[in-house]
């Protein structure tokens, strides 16, 4: 197998990002690093995909962005999850449980 196809995982990028932001506000690279760490290097999100996701999440009011000076004194755009974002995340978790249940009945055999 040659890694995860981006088509399959696309619908869950938002969930992954929101999951990380649930714990604490964060910025671009740290989120991307966290995704690859938690997936044990099996999934590496592309920069453009990540930016696109942030942008979409912000437009839909699921996250808020603000500028802040982080470690090593660099100014970065930070993202923090909103209440709507938390609700959306919970919905997505429910949806995934269902999806997983259904798909596993067919794809979990081989």
């Amino acid at each position, binding site marked *: 197998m040659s890694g995860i196809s981006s088509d399959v995982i696309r619908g869950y990028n938002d969930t992954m990002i929101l999951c990380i932001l649930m714990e604490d506000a964060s910025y671009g*690279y*740290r989120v991307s*690093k966290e995704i690859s760490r938690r997936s044990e290097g099996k999934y590496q999100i*592309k920069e*453009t995909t990540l*930016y*696109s996701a942030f942008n*979409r999440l912000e437009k839909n009011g699921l996250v808020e962005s603000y500028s802040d000076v982080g470690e090593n004194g*660099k100014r970065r755009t930070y993202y923090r999850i909103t209440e709507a974002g938390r609700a959306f995340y919970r919905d997505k978790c429910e949806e995934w449980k269902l999806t997983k249940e259904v798909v596993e009945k067919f794809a979990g055999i081989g």
Partner: protein
Amino acid sequence: METIHNYLETMFSALPNTDEVYRAKDELSAMMEDKFHALLEEGVAEEEAVAKVISEFGSLDEIADDLGIREAVVGVDEKKQRRITEPETAEYLKDSGKAVRRRACGVGLIVAGGSLMPLVRLVADYLYGGAYYPVQLVEAAGAMGMFLCIAFGVGMIIVSTSGKQKWAFLSHENCQLDYPALSAVDSRYRAEQEKLSMRLATGVGLCILSILPIFLFSGHFRGGIFGQASQAAFLIVGACGIVLILCTIGRKRAFERLLGLNGRDTVGGNQFLSQKRLRFDEPMIEEALSVYWQTVLCLYLCWSFLTFSWTRTWVLWPVAALIHRLLVNLFGKEEF
């Protein structure tokens, strides 16, 4: 890090310059930079880190809809953009420099050619020391020399246009300077700025200085050896001044043409101060100014050859320069 920076700038250079595009560029740049430094800290070799960051960047296609640039991203592929690289810009500057020098020297020859008539008389007067000599023959020789100079000068101007074909695509095709090329042209232009100003000032200075002998040797020195010498000196010094001025203007134009290739409304069109450009609200004035100097040169030559009063016709140049400045100041706006 520079390779990454260049990669990103080149990717974005054809996109419209909206706030959203700039924001995306800054964000992506920050992410790439963080990743690059983190990789270095992990002990990854620099080239490897650069390759990794670029290969994991993704594609603009992915953010096209977010930025409202779907059209621009699709357009980039469809319009068959031609990317101009740094070596190409260097070659263009070299070629255009050659053409500009030839044209300037051609004009210089035409102007300086007028000095042959008084010069020949001067030499003849000196050689024969007031004794009789066939004045008409000597004058005819001087005139011959003058027309030869003019013919040669016109020839040089014509030859100077021969290389134009090679670079015609710059105007006909949809050309874009990539980021390294753009920044190289910009820094070269800025490095030459001082030299160009000095040259222009020297040229103008020479033109003004050239009339000095005329005034110096007016009055009772008029005519005879002094008169001829001053006329000849005037034309030669003036021609040198004109050559310098034309060279400078041509060089500036070459730089400005390259820097102006990237569309005004794209990110690549306004990255550097030197990409600022004069804009006119009145299209009429812009049209008129584009042929301004050619018209002045034409007037100058017509007037000069019709009246043969070279001592007066030069006035056209400072007056024309003054009018040009006025028009630019009144109607022009400098902006990106």
